[in-house]
């Protein structure tokens, strides 16, 4: 009895102390949320993405696989008791789970042969700092019915998890957790749902769709326009949506990428960085140009999509990354948005 009371005392009293020195991960979490909520939601300045920041040990084939695909974005709370040494086991558990979900009502055994295959693999080098956990890729492949056919499996669904410059999140969790706050999926939504459910059940995490609001889209537009390109692959294009009934009206606004860059250079002052004022000024210039020609105030409409040669992003939380060089830069910003969402 004595010993119980003394431990209880210890717990209760240490909590009070923790409050004031912010010692526990939860306290740090709370601190960071407070900071974010009390000040402007985003820092007023960010770095312009640098040329290839991929770590040297990356696998170019895998990286190429990630480009030019449309990914749906999700934010993800830290995974509990996830281990990189168990990827094989996770693959077999997940494939059994998918099989069970697809033929509801029947028992399936783990390790049995199904007509699908699940693979887990790490994406080496896909990180911002050494502290960032390794990114990893999950794929659902269909197995060809005839063994004689060539061994190439058809990819049914792909999803990957990453954390690029996730320091603010990393320092607020204990070692039981793996932080990969950004999840990108490509393939049927039902598969995303099944995989998501399995992750949620297995690692007690929580997926939320990550929408990108107009404010953040403007930031993307500015940061990606600021990137130095050897050659431009696509026009810089904006899409605004005008809310009117019965159907909403979309306004598309395409600019030659070099003109966009010239405009950016004219508003840009701080080398290597993008500031909030610059973003606002950049967008205002576009607005006033449009107004001069069409007498439409774009500032009264809603920005829903931004496409550049670096990447394109839709407010629904869909992204396509085009340029290998700035992959890490794009992901760093998305990680930041994901972390903001899970705070």
């Amino acid at each position, binding site marked *: 009895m004595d010993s119980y009371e003394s431990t209880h005392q210890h717990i209760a009293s240490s909590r009070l102390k923790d409050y004031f020195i912010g010692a526990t991960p*939860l306290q740090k979490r709370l601190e960071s949320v407070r900071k974010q*909520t009390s000040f402007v939601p985003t820092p007023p300045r960010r770095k312009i993405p640098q040329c290839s920041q991929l770590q040297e040990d990356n696998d170019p084939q895998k990286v190429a696989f990630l480009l030019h695909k449309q990914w749906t974005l999700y934010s993800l709370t830290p995974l509990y008791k996830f281990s990189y040494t168990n990827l094989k086991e996770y693959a077999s558990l997940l494939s059994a789970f998918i099989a069970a979900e697809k033929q509801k009502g029947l028992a399936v055994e783990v390790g049995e042969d199904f007509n699908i295959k699940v693979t887990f693999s790490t994406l080496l080098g896909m990180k911002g700092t050494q502290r960032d956990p390794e990114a990893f890729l999950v794929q659902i492949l269909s197995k060809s019915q005839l063994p004689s056919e060539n061994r190439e499996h058809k990819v049914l669904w792909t999803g990957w998890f990453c954390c690029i410059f996730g320091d603010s999140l990393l320092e607020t969790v*204990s070692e039981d957790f793996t932080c990969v706050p950004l999840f990108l999926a490509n393939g049927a939504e039902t598969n995303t749902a099944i995989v998501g459910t399995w992750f949620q059940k297995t690692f007690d995490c929580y997926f939320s769709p990550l929408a990108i609001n107009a404010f953040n889209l403007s930031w993307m537009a500015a940061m990606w326009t600021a990137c130095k390109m050897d050659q431009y692959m696509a026009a810089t294009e904006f899409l605004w949506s005008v809310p009117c009934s019965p159907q909403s009206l979309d306004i598309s606004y395409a600019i030659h990428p070099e003109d966009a860059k010239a405009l950016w250079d004219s508003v840009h002052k701080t080398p290597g960085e993008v500031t909030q004022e610059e973003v606002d000024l950049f967008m205002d210039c576009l607005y006033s140009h449009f107004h001069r020609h069409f007498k439409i105030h774009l500032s009264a409409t809603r920005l829903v999509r931004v496409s550049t040669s670096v990447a394109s992003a839709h407010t629904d939380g869909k992204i396509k990354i085009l340029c290998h060089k700035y992959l890490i830069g794009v992901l760093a910003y998305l990680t930041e948005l994901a972390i903001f969402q899970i705070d």
Partner: protein
Amino acid sequence: MSPQKRVKNSQVQKRTSQVSGNYPTNLLAWEEKEDLNDSKYSLKRGQNNPVEDYGHADDQAEDALQIAVRYFEKGPVKTSQNKDKILEEHLKTVENVALKNGLAPEGIDILLNVALSGKFGSAVNTRILKCMIPTTLISEHSVVKAVSWLCVGKCSGSTKVLFYRWLVAMFDFIDHKEEINLLYGFFFASLQDDALCPYACHLLYLLTKKENVKPFRVRKLLDLQAKMGMQPHLQALLSLYKFFAPTLISVSLPTRKKIYFKNSENLWKTALLAVRQRNQGPPPEPLKLMLGPAKVRPVKRLPSQMGAVLNNSLLLHYINCVKDESILLRLYHWLSQTLQEECIWYKVNNFEHEKEFANFLATVNRAQCFLQEGFYSCETFLYKSLPLWDGFCCRSQFLQLVSWIPFNSFSEVKPLVFDHLAQLFFTSTIYFKSSVLQSLKELLQNWLLWLSVDIHMKPVMNSPLETTLGGSMNSVSELIHYVGWLSTTALRLESNSTFLLHFILDFYEKVCDIYINYNLPLVVLFPPGIFYPALLSLDSSILNQLCYIMHRYRKNLTAAKKNELVQKTKSEFNFSSKTYQEFNHYLTAMVGCLWTSKPFQKGFYIDPDVLEKTGVAEYKNSLNLVHHPALLSYAVSFLLQEWPEERTTVNMRSIRGKKWNWYLDYLFSEGLQGLKLFIRSSIHHSSVP
């Protein structure tokens, strides 16, 4: 009723209705309805009483159903000329109700009997079986009874097949399976029937437990397989047997899975979906959870994640005792995300989910209340959602979240929560203001409890405590000052509303007793903006409450003073003389008004010239216990009661000397206990005016 008796009664009820008690209708209700129907009473009642017209159509359908069920129960009428027409009509009725709302367990019980007893032809039996859709559940007993008909041999092979398919399809909705499992041998025997075999296999597959796997059954299955070839349904059952008892089955079974069973559910597919939805609410499966950002998923049940602890007091207890940061972090993340995802004012046009969100918040609040501790997730949720809140949606639940904000440095939380709350407070109705004050009172109480437990458990020597205790007390006093500021302004906005004053004084009833009740070194007095409106209130209960609070302040301050003298050492928490001065100032004002009839001199000073201008001749008396507007009616009642003969010449000034003391007793007997305590403790009786 004693608990024992209640149990007995419910058992009786169970036995009569042959279903367990948690069904929406029991047999009693069922019979009652029939009686009403017989006398054609229900229809009339419906017409006469407009209030009950709502749901009248449903009632009618129910009644028709009852007639139909009874018709089937009695068996076909041989003599009637248009018997086919009647039969068809009743069948239609049953089908319509079953497809729309499902059938109650009693209805299924009767109709299953009808279908398998062979009273009607095969075509009718088929139609009946096809509409055996439960409202929520099927009683196991009905199934057992139905199976017993199979032994009699009254129904055709096709009816049997259909019945087996029905059993497989409805398996999940049967309330218990123990008795059905006892019939395992019977179902196993029906494997020999070629037509039944696939469905019997499926049923056995669902039913098999480890103890059902016996060597003789394995042999039988292998025999069947030898006879009929590699049938997928037999294989499925065999592989299940092998799973339970690997040693009994040595044959190798193919590992690649095909669809083993013919889909028995097809016939009832849409109906099954409807039943599932009825049983679990809108989200039929958790998979829909994350499809697209636009879809809102109502929180009906908690997932198999950390969040599940919210509904389980044992688990809550556990996380409270276990000092594991991971558990708290997992809960934190889950709860933060859920609150954010479900919060309805983050989304446009989704107000139909308000009730669900409110329920969820209520669950969270219950858990917090159980733990006597706020969740961090709720705190961060407040930070994010309060600025966007309209002050209306889920009001009481949301304000309850405020009252569970964990103890904090007030100045840090103020810009995040309390500044936003103040904006809403000042621009909302008096009812909103009162609710806010109420929840701030609870917040104060939670903080005080938390601090009093924490501080007194801690040995004083422990390092950062001293600064901490000072900081904590500062935080609490800042909270109190904040509420004082809100209250003062609110009283001006609402022209000293009595209603509002009640809530304000409730708050100060907590404040005045901090030193004694919570053993914390803090006494904060109310601001003049609250004290004077309360003192001059027209409502006697307000005045009474004020007296009580002043009495408690006095107790707390004297206790503090006494402790200071005992301890002698200068502690950090000695109250400044300012607090005592403030109290004395209020006390003087009160005594001057209520007792000595010398108001506006000390404490509550008003320039005599100003008083002259008001034109009140005897202003000095006008606020004493007799003439105070809140007490005047008591004085009149007192005089009328004691001296009824002087009804025409009620003379208030006559209440003095001995009469004054009688009057006091009268006031106390009228329930003004606060006043009594105040007078007893603060006024020496030598000074009777």
